[in-house]
């Protein structure tokens, strides 16, 4: 077990290095020296020079001990991303935004998961009937409506017109009040794709030989579904669930924008507006790192569900 984890950890090193390389090429090499733009229109030469020094644009890109690449490696690895355009440390901004983002995405994620897995079991149970076909069609239709339309129409009708929810975040509202509508919209928008995925997983499992054996024993459909199919289907479900967790930290770009929730999605939208690539770079790196970590966790989770995977 320990050796397995160590080996998996070693395997993540080239991936993390790759992420560092890609972010460097994308944000430093291709973007180039943006100190003039950063300093603003009426900045003095000194200010520009100062920014160039701080960002390290005056140093060579590669091939030197104080090159920009080495600096990028050193700083990024310890989460030192420098300052944003408004001179605040980027890492502080990220720390501040994580809480609101998670309080939005976790209920949204759990809600979608629970509803879609239970509906998928029902639909798999009714496979081939008219309800199943209708459900699949509805899923595809739901997947085809753009996320933006879900948000805009949801906000307009439920909050603006009918006044069921507050329209916008404000500090004097309780969390439940201002999160209810975005969570609801998020669940509605994600349901189609998720339900269809879990249904496919369940139906794939139901075609297996062991399901036939279970039926031949005289088990009822319900028992076959809940005892035999569900546990085998856990493998793809766990993959999807664990790999979705890094995205929870990133928040929801569009939902946070529309409901004014001061999370990481909002931070990114602001950064895009201000063309502040260092914030985006920090988020990219953290997102990738989380993904790598949770990928590792997925692999370890498999071992608990699937006895065929030995950790040696």
């Amino acid at each position: 077990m320990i050796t397995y984890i160590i080996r998996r950890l070693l395997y993540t090193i080239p991936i993390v290095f790759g992420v560092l390389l890609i972010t460097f090429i994308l944000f430093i090499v291709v973007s180039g020296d943006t100190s003039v733009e950063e300093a603003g229109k009426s900045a003095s030469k000194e200010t520009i020079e100062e920014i160039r020094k701080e960002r390290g644009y005056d140093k060579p890109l590669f091939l030197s001990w104080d090159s920009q690449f080495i600096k990028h490696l050193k700083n990024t690895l310890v989460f030192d991303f420098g300052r944003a355009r408004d001179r605040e440390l980027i890492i502080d901004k990220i720390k501040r935004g994580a809480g609101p983002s998670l309080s939005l995405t976790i209920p949204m994620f759990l809600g979608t998961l629970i509803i879609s897995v239970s509906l998928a079991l029902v639909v798999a149970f009714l496979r081939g009937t008219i309800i199943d076909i209708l459900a699949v069609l509805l899923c595809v239709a739901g997947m085809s409506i753009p996320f933006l339309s879900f948000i805009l129409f949801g906000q307009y009708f439920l909050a603006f017109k009918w006044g069921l929810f507050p329209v916008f975040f404000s500090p004097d509202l309780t969390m439940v009040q201002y999160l209810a509508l975005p969570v609801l919209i998020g669940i509605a928008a994600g349901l189609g794709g998720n339900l269809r995925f879990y249904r496919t997983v369940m139906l794939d499992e139901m075609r297996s030989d062991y399901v036939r054996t279970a039926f031949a024993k005289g088990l009822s459909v319900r028992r076959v579904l809940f005892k035999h199919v569900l546990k085998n289907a856990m493998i793809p479900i766990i993959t999807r669930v664990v790999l979705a967790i890094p995205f929870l930290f990133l928040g929801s770009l569009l939902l946070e924008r529309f409901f004014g929730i001061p999370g990481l999605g909002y931070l990114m939208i602001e950064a895009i507006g201000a063309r502040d690539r260092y914030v985006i770079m920090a988020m990219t790196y953290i997102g990738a790192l989380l993904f790598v970590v949770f990928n590792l966790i997925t692999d370890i989770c498999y071992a608990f569900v699937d006895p065929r995977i030995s950790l040696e």
Partner: protein
Amino acid sequence: MNDNQTLLSVENVSTHFFTEDGVARAVQDVSFSIKKGKTFALVGESGCGKSVTALSIMRLVSTPSGKIVGGNIVFEGRNLLELSGKQIRQIRGNKIAMIFQEPMTSLNPVYTVGNQIVEAIRLHQKKSIKAAWADATETLRKVGIADPEQRVSEYPHQMSGGMRQRVMIAMAVSCEPTLLIADEPTTALDVTIQAQILDLLDQLQEQNGMSILLITHDLGVVAERADNVAVMYASRIVEVADSRTLFAEPLHPYTQGLLKSLPRLGLSAKRLQTISGTVPDPLHFPAGCKFHPRCCVGCSDKRCQTVEPKLRKVPSGRYVACWYAPGYEKKCKT
């Protein structure tokens, strides 16, 4: 056919699959009966419908595409096709058990074998968990698994193919069924293991007095172990006889072809014969006798090409479906 020696009688059963490409008539008008304590073999090439016949008896034909469209399956005096879902579940695994071709995939990979056997036992018998586990261990010992106390808590992937098939058999016989359906139980196994598994089935039959429906494409297996044989071709039974008679004097050209393609001791000088052509597609069966395109007797006979012969009793007391079988037509006209 309904004397008290008969355990199961299948009467004019047809099973069709309604696919996107049309209706596949996988089983057509199949009839046979199995006597208590005897072994009945269903022989045929791949795709002839023998497995679907077995699944029809269990009412396990895959829904929604597959459907039993006609006939009766009478088991211990009850028509299985008229039972409710709950009633048939009480028969499955309890009175009629089934083992499958692929021991590799037929066991659930995420549960221990003990768990899966205990599940079957506790479903049909009122037993405590502890007693059921003891039973499971005992059954594993009975099917010849060494060290059953340890094996019972292992997962299927830790066992070899032959051992898994033994586990399947243990699961099937754990409730002492009166009929065991063995669907190509040895096809996926090594030759040496094959004989062991078949011997095990024989031995269990002696102990429990159960009947066996043995489904196979291997005539060699049939000769040794079956009491009665039905030969299936393209979704129909073409000949039924007791195995000794069938081997001595096959009536249907297809059976004759199958026998000629079997290697036999002492006849090594001659080349083995083959049946030319391939099994017809269940979506597009040829008109008339389905065997006629491959038949050396009737391939140019107008009647064989247009009218399909039904399975009938011929004067010698056997059942066959061929216009050329001795006495077939005489019987037909009267």
